């Protein structure tokens, strides 16, 4: 064995070293870098060329009101901004109390409203809307600092959140008085409707889903079979068939006197659909609870109901929050399917706008805008969910 003289170690700092290590570490890697880099550059140039010279973005700015609130009457639009203000304030408070994940959400909400306000400068939205959006964005911050400074009880916050939903709904649909006349849900549209469908869907389906999950794990065969069949049937068919059924068959299933309008029927369909998925999420959480918890509760003499309510569910539901955020994101994206039964949510408005002779052929612009709005919302939520998972230590405990 002769002593081998080793060459001096390679440089391992500086931009050149970084390039060598991450882009040109081997022949294959260098080749990949060149091919992928070239293609990426080509695509980016083509897209930039289209977006900056060819695309007619006026289709978005001149229809921004439609995209945001649909055909909601213009002189009543303040009600939308006001309910948004309630949500902004509560988000700010939550961000101060819960931290991490909710802070991401609160910041996104504020940033989103500022972004829309900036867009609105070039649109027909008017000063009230712009001022409202900016005030709302500021409200998130104010509420955040307020909750950091003055301790607000968590219980109160939960109650306020629960109350905010019916309050917002009433505010939007109206009381039938002089000041707040009724606004038919058929006029709701755009981003407003997208949000309402998703939020109502997840909130209403939650209790139903929890019951189904408990039912599926029940030791009573009849209960277990009924729950399992419901969950598997719903999960086995596409959402669009359920929406279609809700649209056509729900009126047939209900007594003749009860008339539901389109939006409510779609909400019903979405709720029935997402309940099955919530149930499977919750079941995952239930299975993660060590069986000793239930056995200990039994040994202490708690009834089945007491065991579930006080011991099992609090632990299980906490564990499935990230999964449910994921479900909410996919539900938010799935609300676009109501286009097919003729509702004018964000995508539906986009298609309606394309029917204007002025903007005929501006399809790619509209779809890029709609996709961008969804991207911003889903990305913010998935980041929040990711931080939540980290904070809760899911998977690392």
């Amino acid at each position, binding site marked *: 064995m002769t002593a081998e003289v080793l060459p001096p170690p390679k440089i391992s700092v500086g931009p050149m070293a970084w390039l060598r290590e991450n882009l040109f570490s081997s022949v294959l890697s260098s080749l990949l870098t060149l091919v992928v880099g070239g293609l990426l550059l080509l695509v980016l140039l083509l897209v930039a060329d289209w977006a900056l010279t060819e695309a007619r973005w006026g289709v978005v700015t001149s229809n921004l009101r439609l995209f945001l609130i649909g055909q909601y009457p213009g002189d009543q639009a303040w009600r939308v901004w006001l309910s948004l203000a309630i949500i902004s304030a509560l988000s700010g408070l939550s961000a101060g109390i819960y931290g991490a994940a909710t802070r991401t959400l609160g910041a996104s909400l504020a940033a989103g409203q500022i972004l829309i306000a900036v867009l609105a400068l070039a649109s027909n939205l008017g000063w009230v809307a712009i001022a409202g959006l900016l005030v709302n964005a500021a409200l998130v911050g104010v509420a955040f600092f307020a909750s950091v400074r003055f301790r607000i009880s968590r219980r109160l916050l939960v109650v306020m959140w629960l109350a905010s939903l019916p309050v917002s709904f009433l505010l939007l649909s109206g009381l039938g008085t002089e000041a707040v006349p009724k606004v038919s849900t058929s006029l709701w549209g755009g981003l407003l409707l997208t949000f309402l469908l998703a939020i109502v869907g997840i909130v209403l389906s939650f209790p139903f889903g929890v019951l189904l999950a408990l039912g599926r794990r029940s030791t009573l065969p009849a209960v277990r079979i009924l729950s399992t069949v419901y969950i598997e049937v719903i999960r086995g*068919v596409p959402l669009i068939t359920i929406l279609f059924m809700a649209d056509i068959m729900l009126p047939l299933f209900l007594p003749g006197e009860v008339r539901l309008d389109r939006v409510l029927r779609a909400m019903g369909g979405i709720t029935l659909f997402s309940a099955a998925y919530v149930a499977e999420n919750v079941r995952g959480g239930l299975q993660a609870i060590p069986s000793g918890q239930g056995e200990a509760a039994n040994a202490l003499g708690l009834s089945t109901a007491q065991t579930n309510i006080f011991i099992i569910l609090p632990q299980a539901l906490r564990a499935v929050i990230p999964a449910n955020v994921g479900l909410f994101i996919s539900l938010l994206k799935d609300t676009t399917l109501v286009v097919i039964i003729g509702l004018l949510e964000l995508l539906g408005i986009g298609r309606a706008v394309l029917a204007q002779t002025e903007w005929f052929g501006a399809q790619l612009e509209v779809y890029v805008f709609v996709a961008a709005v969804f991207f911003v919302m889903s990305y913010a939520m998935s980041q929040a969910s990711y931080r939540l998972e980290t904070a809760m230590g899911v998977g690392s405990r």
Partner: protein
Amino acid sequence: MTSAPLAGRGTGVAPWRDIRVIRVAAQVVVVGLVGLLAAFLLRNLLTAMDQRGLGFGFGFLDSTAGFAISETPIPYSATDTYGLAFLVGLLNTLFVSAVGIVLATLLGLVVGVARLSRNFLVNRVAAGYVEIIRNTPLLVQLFFLYAFLLQLPGVADSVALPGGIFLNQRGLSLPAPVFSPTLGAWLAFVALGIGLAIASRFLLPRGIRSIGLLAILVVPAIGWIVLGEAPIGVDPPVLQRFNFTGGMTLSSGFTALLAGLVLYTAAFIGEVVRGGILAVRRGQVEAARALGLSEGHILRLVVFPQALRVIVPPLTSQYLNLAKNSSLAIAIGYPDLFSVSQTMGNQTGQPVSVIVMVMGTYLTISLVTSLLMNLYNRRVQVLER
């Protein structure tokens, strides 16, 4: 407590406290409530259907459909029955789902591996692709792709892609495979080659065993020479003045749907694959390396079998999602199961029967797919002792 009636067999427990009685009673109550609800809904349904003159039954399946379908894998015309129309829709759904699953799996594998690449650019591009696709609705993507295809040049100025493929606003023209009359004879050679390769595993001594595998390639090649004709020819699309002759043309609706489903599902499959590979412990690879296995062997014998175990269950649900998402075809004019059925429902005035058929069919597709994947899953799982 006064004289409480004793529960059977003298256990001394009152019936309302006897767990067996409670269990039966609880089930009776639940089933009763669900039954009542079902009866209520059914009664409303029957009344409403009566009032609106809607019928329920499947007799209409034998009557003439009277509507044309733009794409039919089997011969169908407007004079055929509703039953046949439904079958055409079903075949279209199965076709787009099957092709979509294969392509999405391949692309998903590439994406998953690219996400793990140590090459910064490849890694970031794959991550960007996954984030964009996963955070935007599929329906928007489909509309976008469809609009994109429709604003491409017309047939006369088709965009030529490598491999004799042409893209224009009417869709995609591809070279079509042509089966020669000798295909059957050639397939016999293929079977013989595979048979020899399998036999060689048992017959040849250990060292030269892999030579036997060559039979898979050699025997069909001999067959090709013996038969003197290519078993599968290629019929390329040729641009005439107004359209293509030869080859096969996929409509723009189908192309957009397939591209959308593949791009969308591949992003999810990519994440599944990435998760599966990451789930294999580092120590496994290090141990294999310490044993002197080559990188190829490590991947094939150590990493892949273990990753597969993690990958298969979520992959199943991605396949199911793809099949269910193919129902969005209705939005871009591809006549799939749902789209055809909606026309049927409108025309026959029996939307209830049609929707029952559609949901039943999708449910069957889902159940069969998950059954097959569960069988496969059982094969790749660890046998725990």
